[in-house]
């Protein structure tokens, strides 16, 4: 069927088409408040003039992405007009007609084409042994792990977001760096940052890498820096690319004098240390430790229960709170911790770059570091670390539980897990066992954890008094795994030699 395609190409097409069909079937699945967020943005970019975009507050879901994303929504809104004009009325809060749902879901599915293209480009960068069985080829495995990534499927096509599209831009940028097309890579990253500013986290990796490996055109024989090879031309070109992207994006708002307002929307520090549902990062462990100490302290009469702050950390509202025993954490403290966590990685690629591969590792560490130590991290941010290296971290959970979606989540997770384990085992056959006993036990431990949280706990008495306990347990358990992965990844980055050895994944 179709034009003559190579085996690989037709396989890629089949995988892409297959996952698109699945996404279409999920059109009527549950969607979260993010659906309303994007509908609101469609409405306000369509109905209101540009100067009002960052001031509009009829809906609680104000525009908090950079201007390029607003322009993206503006473009989409013109197509939305043909589906259902009512969704573009700002006052129609929580409007969700079938046509609206269809349009929004289709927009995510179609935008994923960028992701497909990017994955294809990434596969081109992989070294392949010819004549290998299709199912054992690295490009096939990577394609499946990325295109059928269950975390991305659940967050984008059930919960509702545009992460596939954004990750497509990121992966394309990474691919371009692997292909030594650095100007394009830099341009793509600037565009990405102006679409979603959360990618600020990995900007240091880009900055250091481009400066070290691109602006300094040569290294000495031992890999150290050759100061004389600095190319001003390249630096200036890169700077121009980045600045012009920012000019296109923020320019109109700077001209209107709205920059402070835009920035306050983009960086809302009034929110609490932890999201309502704890991201499994270091602060989850910190909170748990604090809670444990306060309980023990009260029990052993070291602390007076009346003097402890009453605010609940596991409450459903996003709010600021105080820790009882351990020192409270401020946004500045988290920033310092994040920077400290990624500095060693940045130093490493400065001194011993190891090419694009080292850049990729550093990028993942930056993403993970900011996830680990960041302020008000949403658990979805883990995707930023997972996707660049297709790691298998089971920390993605939808924010709201919905039993109808549960079988889908389980099936997709099992699908992804079985595929990852068996294909990665095939790939790394020569390196010994894929997981050491501790890692295997930890991953297996997820099964009883999941069973307890989803099935056993709701039947117990504590469901009513401590409804968030299962989520807290899951966050803490996953935080341990993420921390472990972070440390292992760091070790492998700092100790890896220049020969291209693929690191083992967890």
């Amino acid at each position: 069927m179709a034009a003559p395609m190579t085996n690989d190409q037709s396989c890629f097409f089949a995988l892409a088409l297959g996952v698109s069909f699945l996404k279409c079937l999920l059109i009527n699945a549950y969607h979260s408040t993010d659906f309303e967020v994007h509908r609101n943005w469609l409405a306000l970019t369509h109905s209101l003039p540009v100067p009002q975009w960052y001031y509009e507050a009829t809906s609680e879901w104000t525009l908090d992405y950079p201007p390029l994303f607003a322009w993206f929504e503006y473009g989409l809104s013109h197509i939305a007009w043909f589906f259902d004009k009512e969704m573009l009325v700002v006052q129609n809060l929580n409007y969700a007609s079938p046509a609206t749902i269809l349009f929004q879901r289709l927009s995510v599915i179609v935008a994923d084409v960028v992701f497909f293209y990017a994955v294809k480009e990434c596969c081109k960068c992989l070294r392949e042994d010819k004549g290998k069985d299709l199912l054992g080829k690295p490009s096939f495995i990577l394609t499946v792990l990325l295109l059928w990534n269950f975390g991305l499927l659940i967050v984008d096509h059930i919960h509702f977001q545009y992460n596939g599209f954004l990750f497509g831009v990121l992966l394309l940028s990474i691919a371009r760096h692997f292909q030594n097309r650095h100007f394009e890579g830099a341009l793509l990253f600037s565009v990405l940052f102006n679409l979603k500013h959360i990618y600020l986290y990995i900007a240091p990796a880009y900055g250091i890498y481009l400066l070290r490996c691109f602006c300094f055109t040569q290294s000495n024989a031992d890999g150290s820096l050759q100061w004389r090879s600095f190319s001003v031309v390249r630096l200036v070109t890169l700077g121009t690319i980045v600045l012009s992207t920012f000019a296109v994006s923020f320019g109109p708002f700077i001209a209107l004098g709205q920059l402070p307002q835009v920035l306050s929307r983009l960086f809302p520090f009034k929110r609490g240390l932890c999201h309502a549902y704890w991201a499994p990062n270091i602060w989850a462990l910190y909170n748990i430790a604090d809670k444990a100490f306060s309980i023990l302290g009260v029990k052993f009469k070291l602390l007076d229960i009346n003097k402890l702050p009453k605010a609940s950390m596991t409450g459903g509202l996003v709010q600021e709170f105080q820790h009882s025993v351990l020192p409270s954490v401020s946004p500045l403290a988290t920033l310092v911790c994040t920077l400290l966590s990624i500095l060693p990685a940045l130093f490493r690629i400065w001194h011993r770059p190891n090419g694009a591969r080292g850049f990729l590792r550093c990028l993942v560490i930056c993403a993970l570091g900011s996830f680990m130590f960041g302020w008000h991290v949403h658990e979805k941010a883990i995707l930023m670390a997972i996707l660049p290296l297709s790691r298998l971290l089971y920390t993605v959970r939808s924010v709201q539980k919905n039993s109808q979606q549960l079988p889908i989540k389980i099936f997709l997770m099992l699908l992804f897990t079985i595929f990852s384990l068996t294909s990665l085992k095939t790939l790394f056959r020569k390196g010994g066992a894929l997981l050491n006993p501790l890692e295997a036990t930890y991953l297996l431990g997820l099964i009883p954890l999941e069973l307890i949280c989803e099935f056993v706990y709701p039947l117990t008495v504590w469901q009513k008094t401590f409804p968030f306990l299962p989520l807290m347990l899951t966050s803490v358990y996953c935080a341990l795994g993420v921390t472990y992965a972070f440390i292992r990844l760091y070790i492998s980055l700092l100790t890896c030699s220049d020969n291209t050895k693929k690191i083992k994944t967890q």
Partner: protein
Amino acid sequence: MENWSLISLCVLLGLTSRWAVSFHSYSGAGKPPIFGDYEAQRHWQEVTYNLPVHEWYFNNTNNDLNYWGLDYPPLTAYHSLVCAYVAKLLNPEWVELHASRGYESHSHKLFMRATVLFTDILIYIPAVLLYCFYFCDGSSKQKVATALCILLYPGLILIDYGHFQYNSVSLGLALWGTLGLGLGWDLFGCLAFTLTLNYKQMELYHSLPFFCYLLGKCIKQGLTGRGFFHLVKISMTVLVTFALCWMPFLSDPKQPLQVLHRLFPVGRGLFEDKVANTWCSLNYISSYHVCETHLIIAGGHSGIIMLPLLLKDGLLLPYVVTSLAFLFLSLYLLSALERSTEEELRLGLYRKHTQHWLPKLNLSRIIKWKFWFSLVAMAALSFTSVWLKPPAKLPDLFPVLVSVLSFLHFLGFIIYFNQVQLMEPQRKKSLKKTN
């Protein structure tokens, strides 16, 4: 990649698509006072749980047979009873006598969908996997590919997880029956097939091949010796199974007669809301020892016949997606069109006969053209059924066109399959496998 992981991936893909289709609407959703098949199944749970057995098939004040009266054999009733017990544990309102009529809620829908998934996993899916591994040709990867295509067959998914029925039980049991016969476990095969007959009377369509095959086998073994003994064992299995299933109804002669009256309502019209046609389509899939190419050509076209029904249930999106996915996947994985040489379509003998008068006939090219033509016709009919209004004088134009097109296809398939069956030299291969 190892076999077990490939199989697990296929099963998980099958389960994912099934559950994803289940998000959509069901038959009669939000349409009082009659509703649809979903309400029928719920009502049967209500009736079997609250009423004594001897009242299930009879009309009285507690059991209005005009409102979705039981019209499947006893095994369906027992299945409904088991589901009703579970329903009662979760929420008694779901099976409250009279009060639960037309009950619709999100959690109830979840429960009902879960019962379908449960029986699917228990009965149908293992049968499909065993069938593919024991009876299909090719490498293990090809067998897995075939299993995937069968599991993603849209007709079954749409009817069971969309419209709402338990065809996976009856088809699964029938498939177990076929497996039993193929593997030489005749008694097991008989048991399975008798059970499926007692689940849905439509399986009578399959009973003739079963009967003829078994009778032929007994005759071959010699009706005076081993063959006769075998025949007796088979008959006893069938009779005992029937007796066990119908036991509660055997105390009073009026009971089995009433049940039969409900199962075979000669008073009704020939065409019961086009659902009867779905059985035709499903039949062709499982009736014969066919794999791959034959499967796709028959299976792909059977989706269209259910289109009017699916449109009524609000299942257009799952219909389009699952049909396209199935067609594409089967063409891609099973490279059906490349395998449409005369040899592979087993039309060699046919070709020999027609060579005299039609020497230039290129059968494989004709088959390919026919396939694409019918695909286009299907797509066109689907499009017109959804988006165009029929002329005022012919309001049922599109459903009728769908039926005519499908009838022509099925007529063609009957002729084709019969030719294959009759003209083929005896397949000693499958017998060797079992012995």
